């Protein structure tokens, strides 16, 4: 077939438009127009459909408006009669009603599709919102706890259980799935499913206070074996062999105020206020997207995180200058 179907053409035009919308090359993506998940893909399609319907109706309105303005005549006396009730009933009631009912029907179809994945998920992730970070648990695997980073297997639905430790947050991975709120006193559920391995940035979508801007989460989708290996590694306590410097770093961690708020499984640090740091060395960022995870930023964060993410719960730490390199070396070894 040489001539493409009008719908295909519209679809191509939509793709061109969405490429144009992406002006500026983004390193991470958080875009609803680059959907990779089953839920988000459906909504991306719905968006373009609604967009083109809107454009068609907009064109109709602009044509009438343009016609009225173009053919205007000289003002004289006032005009009586010509109430156009019939035309308005057709254009303003009947036609919109048909379009709206159709849109509503499609909406219901998609609402239903978003309600649950096709197959029953066999992986569950528990997400607990905190001001301003994400606590991630894998309840099927004791000890698998991390923060601000969630791994999921490719090609399988994942059940996500959502609750909050404080105020309301909203779980939103634009490329994978629309939002579900985290509500105090309530457990909500959603699910994720993608066929494409990759990283998908997510961000809290309900205003939750000062650092709502830096409450990001990275969703990493990987093949099932890699995912299983990651969960297993995450569940492991921090028992790797350490260099002398790293051993000193561990001591500093355990004996200073760090341990009263943070847990590193396998050590005497069992604080429960801040994120579990057992795998801090491998995470994509520190402070839930506030800074890259490298030695410089991590050191700055420990000494005074308030300059990086003002208002977060961690007070400035009086770590002696000579102790800091060892502490950093230890933390970076935790993978």
């Amino acid at each position, binding site marked *: 077939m040489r001539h493409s179907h009008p719908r295909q053409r519209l679809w191509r035009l939509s793709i061109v438009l969405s490429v144009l919308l992406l002006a*500026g090359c*983004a*390193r*991470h*993506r*958080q875009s*609803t127009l680059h959907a990779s998940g089953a839920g*988000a893909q459906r*909504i991306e399609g*719905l*968006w373009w459909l*609604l967009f083109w319907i*809107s454009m068609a109706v*907009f064109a109709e309105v602009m044509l*009438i*408006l343009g016609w*009225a*303005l173009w053919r205007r*005549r000289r*003002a*004289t*006396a*006032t*005009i*009586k009669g*010509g*109430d*156009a009730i019939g*035309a*308005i*009933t057709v254009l*303003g009631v009947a036609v*919109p009603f048909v379009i*709206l009912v159709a*849109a*509503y029907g499609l*909406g*219901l179809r*998609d*609402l239903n599709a978003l*309600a649950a994945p096709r197959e029953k998920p066999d992986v569950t992730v528990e997400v607990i919102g905190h001001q301003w970070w994400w606590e991630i648990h894998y309840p099927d695997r004791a000890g698998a706890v991390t923060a601000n980073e969630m791994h999921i297997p490719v090609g399988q639905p994942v059940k996500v259980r959502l609750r909050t430790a*404080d*105020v*309301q947050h909203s779980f939103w991975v634009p*490329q994978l799935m*629309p*939002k579900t709120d985290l*509500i*105090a006193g309530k457990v*909500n*559920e959603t699910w994720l499913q993608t066929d494409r391995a990759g990283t998908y940035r997510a*961000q809290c979508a*309900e*205003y939750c*206070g000062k*650092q*709502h*801007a830096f409450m990001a989460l990275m969703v990493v989708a990987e093949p099932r074996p890699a995912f299983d290996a990651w969960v297993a590694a995450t569940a492991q306590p921090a028992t790797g062999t350490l260099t002398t410097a790293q051993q000193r770093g561990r001591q500093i961690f355990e004996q200073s105020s760090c341990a009263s708020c943070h847990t590193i499984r396998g050590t005497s640090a069992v604080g429960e206020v801040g994120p579990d740091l057992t795998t801090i060395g491998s995470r994509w960022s520190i402070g839930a*997207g506030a800074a890259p995870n490298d030695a410089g930023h991590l050191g700055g964060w420990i000494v005074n995180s308030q300059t990086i993410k*003002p208002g977060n719960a961690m007070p400035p730490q009086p770590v002696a200058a000579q102790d800091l390199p060892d502490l950093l070396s230890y933390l970076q070894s935790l993978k």
Partner: protein
Amino acid sequence: MSVETEEQARPASRSEAVAALEKDWGERPSLRSWFSTVDHKRIGRRYMVTAGIFFILAGTDAMILRTQLARPNATVLSPEAYDQLFTMHGTAMIFLFSTPMFFGFGNFLVPLMIGARDMAFPRLNAFGYWVFAFAGTVMFSSQLVGRAPDGGWFGYVPLTDTPYSSGINLDVYSLGLLFLGVSTTAGAINFIVTVVKMRAPGMSLNRVPLFVWAIVGTSFMVIFALPALNVANAMLFLDRRFGAHFFDPAHGGNTLLWQHLFWIFGHPDVYIIVMPALGIVSAVLPAFCRRGVVAYPLMVLAIVTISIISFGVWVHHMFATGLPQLSYSFFSAASTLITIPSGIQIFAWLFTMLRGRIVVRTPFLFVVGFIVTFVLGGFTGVMFAITAFDQQVTDSYFVVAHFHYVLFGGAVFPMIAGIYYWLPKFTGKMYAEKLSRWAFWLVFIGFNTTFMPMHVSGLLGMPRRIYTYPGDLGWDLWNLISTIGAYVLAVGLLLVLIGVLQAIRRGRLAPDDPWGGDTLEWATTSPPRPYNFVTVPTVHSVHPMWDERTTAALATDPPLPDHQAMATSELDGREEGAIEMPEASLLPLVSALGILVVVLGLLWGWYWFAGAGALLIFGTVARWMWPPERTPEEAGVAS
């Protein structure tokens, strides 16, 4: 009383009658009369000026926000400052600007349009203004001391509750809005009674101007919607100050209760804001299309339908909270359907233009700008009614774009059209056409440049209410464009302000009816005298000023004497007799001050002070309500 004696009681000539009315109604300029006036036109102008000042303040907040967001990782504002600014921007634009501004229009215009001499309760009217002015001042003062509300304009718990928000910030919010609610409720009741009881003889319900219908619809929505907000804010205050646990799930409270209560108010409030604006469009168009708005019965039906359906759509603000799907499908259907009455109005205006003879003046341009922007906002509105789509884009910049198209496009464009259109009535002066056209194009282009890109940044995943963003997500360009647009928009709005000030200072004197308008306000002088009409007009059609029977009678009918207004029947507008109107008084101001004392006492925790304020209110209201001394004849008890 015989006809003969009635004739004798009247002054001999029309000019004498006018002189007597001037004496009965005139307010000698003095400091006291400035505080004691009950003239609906002075009060209406005050509402507009005060709301205009709040608009400038809240708009300045927005400019600072946009400056912060122009580039990624900017540090113009601290997170605390950003949170206070965006909260005050939203709260003030919704509560302290939009509704009070339209109440100003309504106050000034409703009595004139229905041929009345004042509002039904002139003192309540003055009271409403003072309460509004005090409440707004209290709320903005908190910004001066860096203690402004910072929980977003819909103040979701638990963030706004203890222990997550300490300090006075959120008490300013809950008490300020409760305080303001007194004013809004009083105003709404006043509008309803005025329109129901004080229309000119002959103005049956099917001859009421569409703007007046819109104000009445709005007032009914206020009366039914506001209690939910008041209850929510009272609960929030009790939770925060006295440890009640309404919203605390650990003690059996429920955080979603706040969301339900807030949006049961909050969604009708969108229409409370937009409906008077739609009324302005219907009032402005006839003058520039040289014909009445077509399909009057459908327009009225649309207004009434919106007023009712708007109470059945609130859950579309909660589509991501995990409520049952069945309830979502119901609220989604209602939210989809509510666009139909708005569609009816849009097409009625389009056909009014098609079937009329268009005269392009600035008010008309703003109406055209309104149609373009409001229609676009309507499309995204339908999208938000569709639950699955809503869940993807709610709380992103897409929703910020949407509601600015609806609220700025839908409310501010008509508002500016109304300002230019009625400026002759408000001030007695004409605006300069050329400057106002510049203003239009800058506002129109600036508005679209600001808010169109927000659709894109929202679709690209940018959440709302973030004080900054990283540079690697593809949002930079769109935010920069938005900020540039915001500056253009600000210049346009500044030109509107300059145009108004220039007109007041040295504008051309306005004739009584510069546009050949169809409604009764154009029968008065520009600006109207304190008594509005010498003769109470008689109405024979929906366009009384285009009706010779009305205009002829205005010149020949006998004047209504004394400090009186005409009462008419509710449906048919049949004459029921004259009523004595109250004189100017300081009581409204003093009782509003009493409420201010109560609010400040509660705010600072000086409960004795609040008690003193309550006593002041009680005393003043008792004095206010005390029956006037009447002779037995007047009281009707003499035999």
